[in-house]
């Protein structure tokens, strides 16, 4: 089992005019000590994925499907009625409901499955009555499709609003939240997008890291102070800077201080959202180099989120390419760069200039990314895809494993991978 497993994660935002389908069925995993790059254009759901993993979603955001397992502990999951409620709104609700119910029943009946954990089992058992109800309704031959849907909606409505179910859900949420509070910072730490302003301007930088340490680690104030000095050494900041205020730090120094903060509690995983985007190339190169060295030394896994595919090419072993809330391609970085199985990835790499080799003509992808409150039907990339066929407008593609450790979300993944389609 990988250290971090994200299975079919769906995270939506509720807004006035409806729902933003920000992350919509994302599956990937990350091993110990491994670096994964998550790339994608602005607004495609990268930050939301990171917030879902760390349970730091804003109030209007909610995990509505899938689960997140870290080191064998369930740290994120939507419960059955919530997930079903979302599925029932989709045009393909029937097969998706069947798939969901089958999955749940398999987990309930079978012994330990790949990513199921004790906690998720316990939670599942509490849901089992509802799953059973849904299953019976689905297989009731006397009902028409319309009637089935009506019944299911009633069951879901009941579950979501019943007093006991609500209380159960709250308790479960609280349990996960408590677990996550232990894990956040001490095992998973996060470098936020725009973190240049992460420090409070009125307190000394060193004191702020000491505070964070005291909160999460069992140590005395003197030990924490000593640890901060060590951390400053580690990231190449002069020890004398611990008494400095944030405004006295340059952009690069602030970024180093933030990295020091993220390393404070010896995490096993760092999620870094655009850690170098605001920096100049020379500083970016330095910081990336330092992150990589520390990571190797301390054997930390890392998820680097960025819109710059060349940054990922420099540092990562695996890559995930996101578009419009979906993971279009995921796997080994060399395999994906050398033999992509996805039209969006091919489009993205073809639009990237380089200083190496010959100057080659760049090809733009026509159009622009969709508004995620109204994503296109079928494959979300179809309005811009040069390979698009009739089926792409109609049906959502499934993820295909084209080679070992290489997945692509496309109806023609195999043909593109093998070069039959170019």
């Amino acid at each position, binding site marked *: 089992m990988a250290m971090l497993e994200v299975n079919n994660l769906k995270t939506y935002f509720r807004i006035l005019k409806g729902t933003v389908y920000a992350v919509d069925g994302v599956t990937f995993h990350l091993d110990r000590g491994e670096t994964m790059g998550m790339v994608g*254009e*602005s607004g495609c759901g990268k930050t939301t994925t990171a917030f879902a993993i760390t349970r730091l979603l804003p109030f209007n955001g909610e995990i509505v499907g899938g689960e997140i397992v870290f080191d064998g502990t369930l740290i994120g999951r939507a419960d059955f009625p919530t997930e079903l409620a979302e599925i029932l709104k989709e045009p393909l609700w029937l097969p998706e409901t069947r798939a969901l119910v089958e999955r749940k029943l398999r987990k309930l009946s079978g012994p330990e499955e790949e990513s199921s954990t004790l906690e998720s089992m316990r939670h599942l058992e509490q849901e089992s009555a509802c799953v059973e109800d849904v299953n019976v309704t689905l297989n009731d031959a006397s009902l028409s499709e319309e009637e089935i849907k009506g019944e299911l909606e009633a069951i879901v409505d009941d579950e979501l609003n019943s007093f006991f179910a609500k209380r159960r859900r709250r308790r479960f949420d609280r349990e996960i939240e408590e677990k996550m509070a232990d894990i956040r910072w001490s095992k998973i730490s996060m470098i936020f997008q725009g973190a240049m302003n992460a420090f409070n301007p009125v307190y000394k930088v060193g004191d702020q890291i000491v505070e964070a340490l005291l909160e999460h680690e069992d140590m005395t104030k003197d030990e924490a102070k000593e640890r901060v000095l060590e951390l400053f050494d580690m990231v*190449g900041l002069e020890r004398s800077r611990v008494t400095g205020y944030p405004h006295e730090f*340059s952009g*690069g120094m602030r970024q180093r201080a933030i990295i020091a903060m993220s390393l404070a509690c010896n995490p096993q995983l760092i999620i870094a959202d655009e850690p170098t985007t605001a920096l*100049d*190339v*020379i500083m*970016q*190169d*330095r910081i*990336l*180099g330092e992150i990589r060295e520390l990571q190797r030394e301390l054997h930390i896994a890392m998820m680097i989120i960025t*819109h*710059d*595919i*060349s*940054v990922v*090419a*420099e540092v*990562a072993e695996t890559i995930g390419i996101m578009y419009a809330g979906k993971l279009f391609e995921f796997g080994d*970085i*060399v395999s994906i*760069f*050398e033999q992509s199985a996805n039209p969006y990835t091919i*489009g*993205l*790499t*073809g*639009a*990237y*200039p*380089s*200083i*190496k*080799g010959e*100057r080659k003509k*760049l*090809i*733009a*992808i*026509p159009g*622009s*990314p969709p508004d995620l409150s109204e994503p296109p039907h079928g494959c979300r990339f179809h309005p*811009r895809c040069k390979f698009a066929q009739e089926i792409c407008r109609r049906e959502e593609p499934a993820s295909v494993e084209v080679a070992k450790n290489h997945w692509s979300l496309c109806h023609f993944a195999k043909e593109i991978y093998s070069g039959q389609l170019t």
Partner: protein
Amino acid sequence: MEAVEEEREDVESEEGVVYKVVNLTKLFPIKSGFFASLFGKEKNVHAVNDVNFTIGEGEILGMVGESGCGKTTCGRCLVRLETPTEGHMYFGGKDITGLKGRELKSFRRDVQMVFQDPYESLNPRLNVYTTVSEPLVVHGVGESADERDDMVAKALQYAELKPPEEFMYRYPHELSGGQRQRVAIARTLVLRPRFIVADEPVSMLDVSIRAGIMNLMLSLRERYKIPFLFISHDVSVTRYMSHSIAVMYLGYIVELGASEAVIKDPLHPYTEALLSAVPVPDPTMKHGRVKIKGDLPSPIDMPPGCVFHPRCLYRKDICDKEMPQFKEARPGHYALCHFAGELPIQRPDDEEIFEVGVCEYCKATIKKGMSYAKCDCNKLYHESCASQLDECPICKKKLQVEE
């Protein structure tokens, strides 16, 4: 360097040269406290220092450098949104450095600037038609409303917003980032400018859209032979866009030459470091890293001698004493360095990597051929760093320089 004279002096128009910049300098005085201004010498931000270049017919000159090195200020001088402190600028052979009043207005009709942020450069309350036709109104161009409509429609078409009617009455919030940047470009094109400064025009755009805007600008240049100054902090983007490249550092152009020459065979130690830091979109390529010392100094207290000497790996005795010449080390390829053309510079396509390691003291690269000390604990130190240290700070052994 002479001060800008009131009297203008035009130069012989050189064949094919549209813009000629001679010793351009722009200082911004710092408003310091009363006492400081009484006792101290007045301080300045040296935004642009003694810059020289020419831009030919239909040429795109790319300008790269780190944040704050003076790219935008230089561009603003060229369209006279800023008045230079010293030096001269000749547009079509005519000295436009000190233009005022009506002459300045007519000059501004011929030169246009495209800005970085497509979200801020358009007024959210004006629709596309009003935005694009505004320059026509300001400059009193076009006899009738019909003629102006026609000019706006054409400009939108040039910017590949087709059909123009579909876009004319939209507001910025109804456009995507790429479309907004196209509107900004249409606005600069409507007056048929003879020169365009594009300041980071694609930096805020997503990759998939960025390539479209870059190709649009290239095709405009192709079709109408409009020369550009293309400003960007992104070296890969600048290489794609430009015929020649100027590399700026602390307000100075430290290297200037044909685009491929500067990228493939750089002369200046700063360019070497800059190029080696550029990430490459290919996970199988390893490239030599050349790390320089320290951080960018402030443009207020400029280093004496060569501006790059505090960070340079190749620095010699002369470097902090004498200002180097802008030397033509190869035909048409200049560098501001005493040793331009003589240094073993790492090139982006070099297979061989000249890096021996990183100096434990100054964190900069130690390259092959440099003298350095290797301590028993395997740490490396530049010769100069070792002599400052005397003993290894890690294991406290005495350092011996080898090679």
